[in-house]
């Protein structure tokens, strides 16, 4: 390829990455900046992170966020893996329909899903709060888990399970000794995904939060609407570092974009 072309391509991609990471970098930098009004020049200061420790509301919200994310991960990964197994191993009537039904949670605007959950839970007296949020988060994580685990299973096919059967392994033995070890990386990736989906979830949590019972994203949003406090920067930095760190982990177990 012509030299000019190579430079153009590299330059374009570099600019794109700059655009993508600019605001995040700025925010992280500002979290360490002394100025309360985000003004230059830059003076290093950890005081906003220190202030976090005294902010009980944020700490409670943080605790809620992590708890829900953990429980969500366990439930979604288990239920999702079972369903993925069914899809991979068997063909049955209604399979396509079930697979199609995985799309509404991801594709319908979360605004609609959020407030319809609010309406329904109100009607059946389930109300709002952590349990409601958990219900919502798992529902949103399930499609991702099923897809990720399903992809892993598909790349190995059912031949390995068949081979185990011909060697005398009962379905139970085959599952534990062959299927699970091979699916493990896919399940780990799906679990990390589920954690991230819940951890970063804003819209659903926003509608289902009860007074005094919220998650970090909801707290951040309320704070933004009311007016800025740089503590928000600090907690946001923490969140984004955790989220991106999680995704880096996922990439170890699951190939985005397919093959090399």
């Amino acid at each position: 390829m012509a030299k000019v072309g190579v430079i153009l391509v590299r330059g374009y991609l570099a600019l794109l990455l700059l655009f993508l990471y600019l605001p995040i970098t700025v925010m992280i930098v500002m979290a360490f900046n002394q100025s309360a009004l985000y003004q230059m020049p830059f003076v290093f200061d950890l005081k906003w992170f220190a202030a976090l420790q005294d902010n009980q509301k944020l700490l409670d919200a943080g605790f809620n966020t992590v708890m829900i994310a953990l429980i969500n991960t366990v439930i979604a990964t288990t239920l999702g893996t079972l369903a993925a197994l069914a899809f991979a191993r068997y063909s049955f009537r209604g399979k396509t329909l079930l697979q199609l039904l995985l799309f509404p949670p991801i594709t319908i605007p979360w605004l609609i899903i959020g407030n319809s959950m609010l309406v329904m839970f109100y009607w059946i007296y389930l109300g709002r709060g952590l349990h409601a949020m958990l219900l919502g988060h798992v529902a949103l994580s399930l499609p991702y888990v099923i897809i990720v685990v399903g992809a892993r299973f598909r790349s190995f096919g059912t031949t390995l399970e068949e081979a185990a059967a011909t060697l005398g392994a009962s379905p139970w033995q085959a599952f534990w000794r062959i299927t699970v070890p091979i699916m493990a990386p896919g399940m780990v990736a799906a679990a990390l995904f589920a954690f991230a989906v819940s951890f970063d979830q804003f819209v659903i949590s926003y509608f289902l939060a009860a007074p005094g019972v919220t998650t970090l994203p909801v707290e951040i949003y309320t704070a933004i609407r009311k007016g800025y406090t740089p503590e928000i920067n600090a907690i946001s930095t923490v969140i984004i570092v955790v989220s991106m760190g999680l995704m880096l982990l996922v990439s170890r177990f699951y190939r985005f974009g397919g093959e090399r």
Partner: protein
Amino acid sequence: MSRVEVDRVSKHYGTVRALDEVSLAFADGEFFGLLGPSGSGKTTLLRAIAGFVEPDSGDIRFDDRPVRDLAVHRREIGMVFQNYALFPHLSVFDNIAFGLSVRHLPVAEIKARVTEILGLVRLAGYEERRPRQLSGGQQQRVALARALVTRPRVLLLDEPLGALDKRLRQQMQIELRQIQREVGITTIFVTHDQEEALTLSDRIAIFNEGRVVQIGAPHAVYERPSSAFAASFLGDANFFAGQVSAEAGRIEADGGRRIATLDALPPAGARITVAVRPEKMLLEPATAPERDTPNRWTGVVKQSVYSGSSITYRVDVGTEIVVFAQNQSAQPLAPGTAVAVTWDPLHSVVVEA
């Protein structure tokens, strides 16, 4: 080691008949090849014997015992898959030992049997390797060892050599046959490679569209195909349509020529098709002294294809026929040469159209 009986087994998927009243009997210790084009039902039958496919009707029996209600893992079979299906997360040793360990055999016995079979497939010393570290031929041998170590009643092979290149395949064919003879196990294998089927099998069955078209020893099936399909699927054939002549053992081929045959013929006047294999025909320049055979047709060479050890001729004798000639003289006959084609009436095979 068991006999296997397939009794009028049928299977359809929607409107497609994958198997249509198939009946076969596999003798104890026999090496049996299922041959046919894609979709002919041979793989479906193999998987039905294994237990992955449930027949819609008919029975399958191992040593007279029906296996319909037996799940795959209870049938005591050994199976080698097309892509070997070696467990990637286990070592060679653990792969082979798998069938023994799910039966909870004592550790010492497992070790002994695995070591023994590794010797048989000439992979001693490879115990700790992972499948991805092995070559195609080595993986195939591990797959075979894994299937055999449990001493199954039947060995099922699904296109076992398909993934190997030609040289390696020929080598593995010999090894496979040797091992099978040593162990003496009833073996059923599926292939679409006719050469492989002919080389390895004690008997073969040719499948087409869910039905068995012909069964027999390779030699019998090849030399005396019973149908045009069998004649053209296994090997090549020149087909001549015509009418049974009033003269005994003669057929009036369409186009005016006559064919002599030793096969039994229907009454005079009946329509009939005769197949003659290209390698059975002798091609000589028309000027060569006449041979003493009733089947002698003259024609012109249209094309000669040189393939090293043999030459393929396309000859116009009124209709176009194919002749295989051994490369004895290193001088292919040029297109346009006037030639005479002769063959023994023994090799005029009457087939159903």
